[in-house]
């Protein structure tokens, strides 16, 4: 098999950070090549170089043996290289079809846009990846997961010889992931070379033919993922053995912290695609980690938003009790003051000010506690920030550095740390480990365990079933904005959750064991 | 423009048609170029005050905010409203000519104030003569203030405005008689007090010896005075303005209080306009095609008296 892509001695520096160093990377035709590594290892950087997004780098690239040097993404696309970017890069105001064909619109004979043909072809593409989206819908109305599917369809539509997928599944649930794998296998069989980046270890063994591990911008090892256990892969990535991914909770739970009774939200101005709570009841005890499972659009995010008081306006019925007292969430400030913290799903859009410092981002929720009379005591905030960074094992240079220069997982920790500094009783977490590497995940899980042991309650929405089963004491399954089942993780597995989430049992065997 | 029109006496044929005598009720539309200029605001005020004494009149006002296009629309709206007489103080001559003609051709008598439109499609023009005013100011400076000669700085109005050009042109003529009077510098103060002040700051700096400041209007003269006062040089030089509005913030008061040596009236003609309207509509008479009101020199000797005359109620 000829080498489709050969990258040699690739180097890339960002200020003091060596994102890639002397990296040699080879991709064959018809190969699915997984690229693994911790957050900030340099995976995205390497692939951005290949896809023409980054144009200044050291080293050389050859496609089919021909040396190339791209001057931009269009260049790379012309050479048959397409990339699904980690951050969803879509235009909210344009329709699904317009987004898919952006930059290479189909034309009629008089050079006008052939909208009908674009819509037809978009529908075919979406169907191929198993998504029944209306191609005329504006992308801004779609859920994160749906947007991710659109970017996948868009990349596939390029008919590329090399397809780079940078965390394509981070917002997808298992059924969509399965469908994507079908597509990947199909592409592989037709000779496309695929680079697959993911932090979901269970996916690697399923789909990849080969895996390469990057650490601190350098290649550490390359292997056949089917021949190694997950633990071994993880060790290669992190550089040390990681004992147990999941700290089994002691289930030493205390009093009831949160009680939600038949919560319903009737939005004043309903938005298409939103699934507001339509009768949800659940409880969280102090010291308990309760998971929220569900398919794409089951209403997990919306439930957490409603509890945090940031759902769009409407009529809310049912009751929310915190430590037995009814509360009416009206907004983050008020809810935070009552001891409920929230870590949103999309850290870049709703979590961080990317160009502000790590310090500023960490302390913003707890400012009143440093100094008095509205004057900040700099030493105090610095101490608090350093303490939190240590506790979360944040990997950073200086507190003054822009948060945007941290790797995704470390950015996530900053959002996390910010909430911990408010000393909450209850944490609402929405996909807290999306895009976070295994090592950091393990730390976050360990931290959750610690917090729970100290009496904190956690409500954790996640699309990763292993995470829910591994971390939570109990999992509540949502479907169509209602709670449909509740499991104790001590005596149920991922299959039970999935079956409940889908509302029937057919899928049980298919996704049963991972 | 100040192109001299043939002074053609008689009333236009359209004018008489609208006369309904003392029993009529008349709506008069006043189209003002820009009330942000104190002079023009005073014109409106004068018209308002004069119209109070004519019970048959109901005067409406429109402000074009210094935009020719807006003023065209204002006049058109008056035509739509079928007003009985139009008073217009045009922002600029040429752009307003055709719409004024349109009104005139529809049989609406038109009194043009301050700035003439082109052609003769209007009933009467009442205005001052900016060239003449500039000339008077020049003469006054050359003969009264600097008979032995001296240095003059000129603070001009907004570049591009007709009165600015005319007040400059007349002034140059006016000082010709005394070759020892030198204009050593000129700056554009855009008619504004603060602009006059900041321009004067620099002029003072650059010119150690200034004897007279000739300003194209009173506000800039006042600004210049303030600038000189700030560096303690206000006694070294004299200031003259133009407009002499009889309002508390106007030039007459400034002369009375000794900040300006002199100013020259630029009559608003509000009173005269209403008198002319009365003649046309109520008395069914005719008016002069062109009525140019002379300027008056205001100095310390007559300032208080004239202020009182112009503001009979106090």
């Amino acid at each position, binding site marked *: 098999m000829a080498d489709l892509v050969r990258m040699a001695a690739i180097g890339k520096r960002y200020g003091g950070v060596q994102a890639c160093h002397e990296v040699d990377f080879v991709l064959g035709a018809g190969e699915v090549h997984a690229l693994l590594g911790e957050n900030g290892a340099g995976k995205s950087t390497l692939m951005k170089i290949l896809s023409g997004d980054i144009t200044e780098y050291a080293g050389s690239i050859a496609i089919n043996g021909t040396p190339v040097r791209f001057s931009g*993404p*269009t260049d790379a*696309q012309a050479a048959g290289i397409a*990339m699904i*970017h980690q951050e969803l*890069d*879509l*235009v*909210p*105001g*344009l329709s699904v079809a*317009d987004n898919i064909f*952006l*930059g*290479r*619109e189909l034309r009629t004979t008089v050079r*006008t*846009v052939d909208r009908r043909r674009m819509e037809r072809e978009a529908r075919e593409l979406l169907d191929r990846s*198993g998504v*029944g*989206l*209306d191609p005329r*819908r*504006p992308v*801004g*109305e779609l859920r994160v997961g749906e947007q991710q599917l659109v970017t996948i369809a868009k990349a596939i539509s390029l008919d590329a010889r090399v397809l780079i997928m940078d965390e394509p599944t981070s917002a997808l649930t298992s059924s969509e992931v399965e*469908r994507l794998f*079908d597509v990947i296998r199909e592409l592989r069989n037709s000779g496309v070379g695929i680079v697959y980046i993911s932090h979901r270890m269970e996916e690697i063994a399923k789909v990849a033919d080969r895996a390469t591990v990057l650490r601190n911008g350098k290649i550490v090892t390359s292997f056949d993922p089917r021949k190694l256990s997950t633990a071994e892969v993880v060790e290669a990535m992190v550089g040390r053995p990681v004992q147990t991914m999941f700290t089994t909770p002691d289930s030493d739970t205390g009093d009831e912290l949160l009680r939600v009774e038949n919560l319903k939200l009737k939005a004043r*101005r*309903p938005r*298409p*695609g939103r699934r507001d709570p339509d009768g949800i009841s659940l409880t969280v005890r102090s010291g308990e980690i309760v998971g929220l499972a569900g398919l794409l659009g089951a209403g997990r995010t919306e439930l957490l938003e409603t509890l945090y008081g940031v759902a769009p306006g409407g009529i809310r019925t049912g009751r929310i009790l915190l430590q037995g007292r009814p509360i009416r969430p009206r907004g983050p400030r008020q809810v935070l003051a009552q001891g409920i913290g929230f870590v949103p799903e999309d850290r870049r859009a709703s979590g961080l000010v990317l160009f502000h410092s790590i310090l500023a981002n960490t302390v913003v929720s707890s400012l009143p506690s440093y100094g008095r009379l509205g004057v900040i005591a700099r030493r105090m905030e610095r101490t608090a920030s350093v303490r939190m960074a240590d506790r979360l094992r944040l990997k950073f240079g200086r507190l003054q550095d822009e948060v945007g220069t941290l790797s995704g997982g470390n950015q996530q920790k900053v959002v996390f740390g910010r909430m911990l500094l408010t000393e909450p009783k209850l944490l609402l977490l929405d996909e807290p480990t999306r895009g976070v590497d295994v090592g950091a995940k393990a730390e976050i899980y360990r931290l959750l365990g610690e917090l729970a042991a100290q009496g904190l309650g956690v409500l954790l929405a996640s699309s990763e079933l292993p995470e829910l089963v591994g971390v939570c004491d109990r999992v509540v399954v949502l479907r169509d904005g209602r709670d449909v089942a509740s499991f104790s993780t001590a005596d149920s597995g991922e299959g039970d959750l999935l079956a409940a989430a889908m509302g029937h049992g057919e899928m049980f065997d298919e996704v049963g064991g991972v | 423009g100040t192109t001299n029109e043939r002074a053609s006496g008689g009333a236009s044929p359209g004018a008489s048609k609208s006369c309904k005598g003392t029993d009529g009720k008349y709506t008069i539309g006043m189209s003002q170029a820009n*009330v942000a200029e104190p002079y023009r605001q005073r014109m409106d005020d004068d018209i308002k005050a004069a119209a109070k004494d004519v019970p048959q009149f109901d005067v*409406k*006002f*429109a*402000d074009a*905010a*210094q*935009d*020719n*296009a807006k003023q*065209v*629309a*204002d006049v*058109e*709206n008056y035509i*739509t*409203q*079928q007003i009985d007489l139009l008073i217009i103080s045009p922002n*600029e*001559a*040429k*752009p307003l000519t*055709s719409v004024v003609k349109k009104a005139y051709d529809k049989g609406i008598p038109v009194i043009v104030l301050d700035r003439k439109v*082109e052609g003769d499609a209007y009933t009467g023009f009442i205005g001052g003569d900016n060239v003449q005013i500039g000339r008077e100011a020049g003469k006054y400076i050359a003969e009264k203030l600097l008979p032995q000669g001296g240095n003059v700085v000129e603070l001009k109005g907004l*570049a*591009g405005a*007709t009165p600015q*050009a005319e007040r400059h042109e007349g002034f140059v003529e006016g000082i010709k008689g005394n070759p020892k009077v030198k204009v050593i510098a000129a700056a554009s103060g855009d008619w504004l007090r603060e602009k006059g002040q900041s321009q004067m700051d620099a002029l003072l700096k650059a010119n150690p010896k200034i004897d007279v400041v000739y300003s194209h209007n009173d506000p800039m003269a006042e600004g210049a005075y303030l600038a000189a006062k700030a560096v303690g040089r206000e006694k070294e030089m004299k200031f003259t303005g133009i407009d002499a509005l009889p309002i508390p913030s106007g030039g007459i008061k400034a002369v009375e209080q000794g900040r300006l040596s002199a100013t020259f009236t630029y009559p608003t003609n509000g009173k005269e306009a209403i008198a002319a309207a009365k003649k046309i509509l109520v008395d069914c008479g005719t008016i002069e095609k062109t009525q140019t009101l002379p300027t008056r020199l205001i100095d310390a000797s007559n300032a208080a008296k004239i202020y009182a005359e112009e503001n009979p109620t106090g």
Partner: protein
Amino acid sequence: MTDVQDKVVTTDKMSVAATLFRFQSVFGLIAVFVAAIIFSPRKNGAILFVSADNLANVVRAVSEIGIIAVGMTFVILIGGIDLSVGAVLGLAAVGSAVLMVENDWGFLPSVVLVLAIGLVFGALQGVATAMIGIQSFIVTLAGLQIARGLARIWSGGQGVAIAYGDGPKEAPTSFALLGERTFGGLVPIPVIIFAVVAIAAVVFLRVSAFSRHLYAVGGNEKAARLSGVPVVRVKIAVFAICGLLASLAGIVHAVQLNQGSPNDGIGYELDAIAAVVIGGTSLAGGRGSVAGTVAGALLLGVLNNILALNNIDSNIQLLIKGLVIVAAAALQRLRPTS
């Protein structure tokens, strides 16, 4: 692959409300129109507002702002702003007058040169913002001053009157036609020019690939770049179009007023922006339409007209217009997707 027909998202439900909101500025226009009829003064039983003559006046009065606003819509759609349009209008008005009257140029060469000046001026601003990366607010704020300065210098500081005829120092009579009325003396040519510009823009935005690129640049510039959209070229083109339309408006201005003055068009940029925003285009870029802008411009025109017909005091007019702008913008907030 499994068949997933059941997951097709239905769009029907959003239809009625969404359609209403989509054409909200049109409805706003209708509402204002009805209000105008109600509040219109009457003379001899006739409603003054709806007289053909008055309606023609209303549209003629907004035609310049309207033409500018169409270009401004493009700029705002890519997330920029153009403060220079009023000054470019003045420059173009001066240019047409000087070329035809003082330089005795013919109709066509004058118009072409003036349009080219606007185009190049806009394109240069586009270069400064797209290639150097200066925010368009600043580029065009500077551009405003530069265009105004150029207009003053070119005209010698004075308005240049346009007289028509074949002699020297006279503009060709063909130019005067642009200011006339047609269709039985009812429809002013400027209105027709505005209509043509607006319709062309609407069609253009609907069928061209360029328009997709334009929305993409305004909606998510990075995504546009990664998709191979020529972002820099799009930006330069959009500013060039805006400059071109501003100078077209300047020509219309000059012919309507028989003069080109360097002070023409002062403050027009704010009126144009107001029309665009009232028309539902987001200042953040990526969302909006030319149809809305046209409705917005007409709405402002009707408002001006009805206030004037009722002889509302000019100071009170300022207050009312301010409040109407805020109210119209507040209405925009009611649309379902923010």
